């Protein structure tokens, strides 16, 4: 039964990074690793380079980078940092 709910609740993730900075590269690889491990095939991940789209910074209220926005399932959560603290990432994504 849990499986069906998870099937419906696909994780919609957007990761904002700044070019190829150390934190950005680390965040991308850490997040991909976590997603593959815990929500395998049940997520969509968009990676956005804020340098390329500067206006998005104001629109999305971006301050700290890298920033991961989980817009679904609700509630929306924001995670900042290089995603190296796996426990916190899972907590933020609502995966126990």
């Amino acid at each position, binding site marked *: 039964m849990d499986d069906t709910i998870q099937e419906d609740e696909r994780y919609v993730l957007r990761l904002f990074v700044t070019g190829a900075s150390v934190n950005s590269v680390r965040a991308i690889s850490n997040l991909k690793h976590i997603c593959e491990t815990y929500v395998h095939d049940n997520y969509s991940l968009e990676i956005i380079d804020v340098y390329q789209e500067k206006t998005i910074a104001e629109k999305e209220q971006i301050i700290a980078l890298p920033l991961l926005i989980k817009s679904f399932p609700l509630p929306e959560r924001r995670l900042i*940092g290089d995603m190296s603290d796996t426990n916190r990432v899972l907590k933020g994504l609502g995966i126990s």
Partner: protein
Amino acid sequence: MHINYSQNPHKPLKLLPKSPTGIIGLDQITEGGIPEGRPTLICGGAGCGKTLFSMEFIVRGAMEFNEPGVFMAFEEKADELTMNVASLGFDLEKLQADKLVKLDHVYIERSEIEETGEYDLDGIFIRLGHAIDSIGAKRVVLDTIENLFSSLNNEAIIRAELRRLFQWLKGKKVTTIITGEKGDGIFTRHGLEEYVSDCVILLDHRVMNQISTRLLRIVKYRGSMHGTNEYPFLIDEKGISVLPVTALTLDHDVSTERVSSGIPSLDKMLGGKGFYKGSSVLVSGTAGTGKTSIAGYFANETCKGNKRCIYFAFEESPKQIIRNMMSIGIHLQEYVDSGLLKFHASRPTLNGLEMHLVAIHKLVQEFKPQVVILDPITNLITVGSVSEVKTMLIRLIDFLQSEQITVMFTALTLNNIVNEQTDEGVSSLVDAWLLVRDIEFNGERNRGMYVMKSRGMKHSNQVREFVISDEGLNLVDVYLGPEGVLTGSAREAQRLQEETGDVLRKHALTMKDMEIGRKRKVLESKIASLKEEFESMQDQLNKSYIEDTLRKEVIEKNREELTRNRHND
């Protein structure tokens, strides 16, 4: 070989470039503004005016100095800010549409954020960089960036990033204002002053005796001269105005021009011409002695000469003063209508002394009057101590004298004893001091006026009776008799008595004249009869003399006859 390092007069040293804030008074204190292309920290407690201060910097920059600005708000939303400053006449929406100002509201909800490792604040850099580039900003405000500390956990990262941010802003050559909440014993709660070391301005909002005063102090200004005092400032419908209290040097110009007090007999007491232009006049006296009337006369006289006058009323409303002045034949309303006379009525308790001073400064600079009247200064004592009031008045007199404005204060003295000092202790500061006092005698009160002092002119040392009637004010010579100074009806009675005496004396005089006339007549008739007597006596004497002569002749003749007859024998 001798190398001269001293300043070469032909090649001036390069001074720190400054960016004018456009805030009234602040540019004078800082001698030109805040350091250009560098960050300045403005700190202070809640509600001290930090946001307004920085907003005015941005708006004035955009409107007056053609320097677009970015306002990054960490506290208030853009539309809230727009609304808040609309009361000052700043149209932020239009300025934003004209690409002169850019507002960016930075919002962080701590509960929504999970920190998962190393991060940086590149988001702020990107947003700020984009905003600066999009409008070509020369000015940036970060209000209040310290909010980051409460939104994010990792203080070490924030500190490192702030340091980087300020360096980056310097590199961008934008003049930045960073605001910070005042902490306990330190300038900002999170020690921002550590990063912003060029210029630190501290704002304070102090409440003493339920009266609030806003104060500004430049704590630090690297590479520049600056005023070090606490300067009061005012927030009103036109924004912020800081009162620069220049060093109290006594080198202002003086005038030998005289201005009439409006009361001819008072002018006569003052060497015949009145006060010096640009001098300070104190009118003190007990309650109801006509201080306001004197002030009203002076205002009237000033406006009559087509000069401007501001009347600061601390006790009565303008309408009340105008009505009361009508009763002594002074019509101030017409001058109010023609714009020569301006009333500014406020309760002394409205705000602190400093605020009053700022308000007076502002009005005087706007209205450019030749005469300023403060009626009465006594009530100011309710909002400050004697020494504070005195300092304030010193500064006011100093300012007005430097502007060549004649000022008249009225002050209430509380008892009938002539004090060497008035309650406000300003008597030593003023150039002329008129004392109006009650003279109670014979069951009535009358007003006596003295010129206690009047610098630089011959003035009367006499007490004059000060009479207020329907026709206006007048000074009458008092009667100085054996019983002392007589005024009012006693003086009148004395005058009558003297008149009676005169009539009696005159009468007595005529009686004596008649007596003398009669005596003269008697004597004259006596003289006439004596003359007659003398004449008749003379006649008689003459008669016998002639007879004698005749007889002698006859005898001689007879003898000759006889002799001849004898010889004929």
